[in-house]
C-alpha cells in the first residue's frame, strides 16, 4: 500500500522561487528511503509538503490516506499524528527532563497519564535511554539528545518517521548509531524517510536513495542493503 503518493507536484513560493518542479514518486508502507541532494535543492520543501507545513502549488499529493491538496486545516493535526518528525536541531524543551520531553508529545494529543507512563518507558528503552529519564537535555550528549527527539517522534506510534538531517548536529560515530536505530525502527514496520546530505552514511546503509537537484528528481535507485534487510526491501 502506498504511504506517500506524489504526482506532478510543483511548489512555487510567493517570491517566485520554484522549489520543486513536477515531481512524481511513490513510497510504500514500511519502506526506508533516503532523500539526498545539495542544499537548496528542494529537500526541505519536499518535507514541508509531506507534513503539510506548505501546500503544493500544483499536482496531486497523498500521505497516509489524506489528500493534502484538499485537506481541511482542522484535519492537519490528525495527519501529523500519523508521522513522527525528527529535526536536525532536536527541538527539545530545555526546562523539561528527558521523560517529560517525550511524554509531552503524548500529553498534547490528550493521552491519559497512565498510558503515557507505560509507553514512554518502552520508547526510552528502545532508544537506549532508560535510566536517563530525569536528566535535562543540557546534561546529555548531542547523540543522546537526538535519541530523545527520536523517542518523541516514536512515542505516538506513527506510521512513518520523517527525519530532517537527523545526524547533522552530531559526531560521525554517533550518527551511525542513530541510523542503526532508525533501521531497527523500520524493521518494526514503520516507514522511515530521512533527508540528508551525508552521502557516505547513505552509501553505508544502502536502500532506496532519491536524489533531488534543482527541484527535480535526478535519480531514484535501490542500493544493496548493507545493514539488516527490511520487509519492504525483500519485496
Amino acid at each position, binding site marked *: 500500500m502506498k504511504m506517500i503518493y506524489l504526482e506532478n507536484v510543483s511548489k512555487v513560493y510567493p517570491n517566485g522561487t520554484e522549489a520543486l518542479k513536477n515531481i512524481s514518486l511513490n513510497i510504500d508502507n514500511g519502506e526506508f528511503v533516503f532523500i539526498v541532494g545539495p542544499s537548496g535543492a528542494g529537500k526541505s520543501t519536499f518535507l*514541508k509538503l509531506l507534513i503539510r*507545513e506548505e501546500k503544493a502549488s500544483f499536482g496531486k499529493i497523498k500521505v497516509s490516506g489524506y489528500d493534502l491538496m484538499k485537506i481541511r486545516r482542522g484535519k492537519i*493535526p490528525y495527519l501529523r499524528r500519523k508521522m513522527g*518528525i525528527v529535526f536536525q536541531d532536536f*527541538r527539545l*524543551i530545555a526546562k523539561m527532563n528527558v521523560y517529560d520531553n517525550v511524554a*509531552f508529545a503524548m*500529553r498534547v494529543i490528550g493521552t491519559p497519564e497512565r498510558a503515557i507512563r507505560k509507553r514512554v518507558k518502552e520508547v526510552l528503552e528502545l532508544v537506549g535511554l532508560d535510566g536517563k529519564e530525569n536528566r535535562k537535555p543540557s546534561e546529555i550528549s548531542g547523540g543522546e539528545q537526538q535519541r530523545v527527539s527520536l523517542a518523541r517522534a516514536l512515542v*505516538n506510534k506513527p506510521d512513518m518517521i520523517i527525519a530532517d538531517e537527523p545526524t547533522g548536529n552530531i559526531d560521525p560515530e554517533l550518527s551511525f548509531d542513530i541510523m542503526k536505530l532508525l533501521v531497527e525502527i523500520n524493521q518494526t514496520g514503520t516507514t522511515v524517510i530521512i533527508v540528508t546530505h551525508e552521502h557516505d552514511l547513505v552509501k553505508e546503509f544502502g536502500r532506496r536513495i532519491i536524489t533531488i537537484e534543482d527541484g527535480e528528481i535526478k535519480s531514484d535507485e535501490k542500493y544493496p542493503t548493507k545493514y539488516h534487510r527490511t520487509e519492504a526491501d525483500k519485496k
Partner: protein
Amino acid sequence: MKIFYLIKEGFKNIWTNRMMSLASVIVLVSCLIITGAAFLISFNVTHLISKIGDDDQITVYLDYDLNDLQSIKLGSQISKIKNIESYSFYSKEDALKQYEQVLGNIYESMQDDGNPFGNAYKVKLQDLSQYKNTVEEIKKIEGVSAVSDRSDIAGKLTKLNYFVTIVGSWVVLILALVTLFIISNTIKMTMYSRRYEISIMKSVGATNSFIRVPFVIEAMVIGLISGLAAAGVICSVYMPVRNAAAGIIGFIGESTFTVEQIMIPTFIVMSSAGLLIGIIGSIISITRYLKKEGGEIIGW
C-alpha cells in the same frame, strides 16, 4: 484529566511570564477602575435625577422675622392655590433640631434668638406638570422668602448625566481597546516564550484548540484577577468619595446608592468584564499566531 492538564499549563504560563502578567494586571486594573467609576457616576446621577423627579414636595421658606401666628396665616394663603394637595408647617425649631447632633454643645445656645432658621412649609403638589406655575404663584405671596426649586437641579443633572454618558462611553470604548491590546500583547509574549513548545505541539499533531486553551486560561485568569482587584478598589473608595460629594451637595447622600447596594453588581460586572477582555484579547493574538507553521513559529 485533559482539562486539568490544560488549566495547569495556563497557570504555569502566568508564572513563567510573571513580570508581564503583573504589568498587564496593573494596567487592566487601572483601566477597569476608570471604566467602573464612569459607570457608577452615570448610574448614580441617573438615580439622583429619577429621585428628584419623583419628589413632588417643595419647601417654602418664610421670611426670617415672621412669627408663628403670621406664618399660620400665610399657610392659609398657600392652601388657596389650586394645585396644592397638602401642606404642613415646618417650624424654625424643627429645622434647628435637624442639626442637633452636628451642632453638639452649641445647639443649646442657638435655641430661641440664636436660631438662624426661619419657619417653612412643606407643600405637596397635585399635578407635577404645573410645577413651575405653582412655584411662581407661591413666590408671589408676601412673606415668602424662597422656594426650593429642584427642577432646576434636575435639569443640570440631566445635562451632567448626558455629558457623563457620552464621555463615559468614549472612555469605556478607548479603555476597552487599550485593555484588549495589553492582554493580547501579554499573550503574544507568552506564546513567543513558548514558541518552541508550540512548534513541537504542532509537529506531533496537537489540535489548535488544544494549543489555544492554556493561553486563553492564562488571559482569563489575568482578566479575572484584574476585575476582582478593580472591584475591590472601587468598593473600598466608594463610600469616602460619596460622603465627600454629599458634604458639598447635601442630598447626594440620601439619593445615591450605598456601597452595600453596589458591591455585588460591581464585583459581578468587573470580573465578567475582565474575563471577557481576557478571552477576546487572547483569541485575537492566538488565532493570528496559530496560522504560522514550523519554522515560521521558531523564527518568529
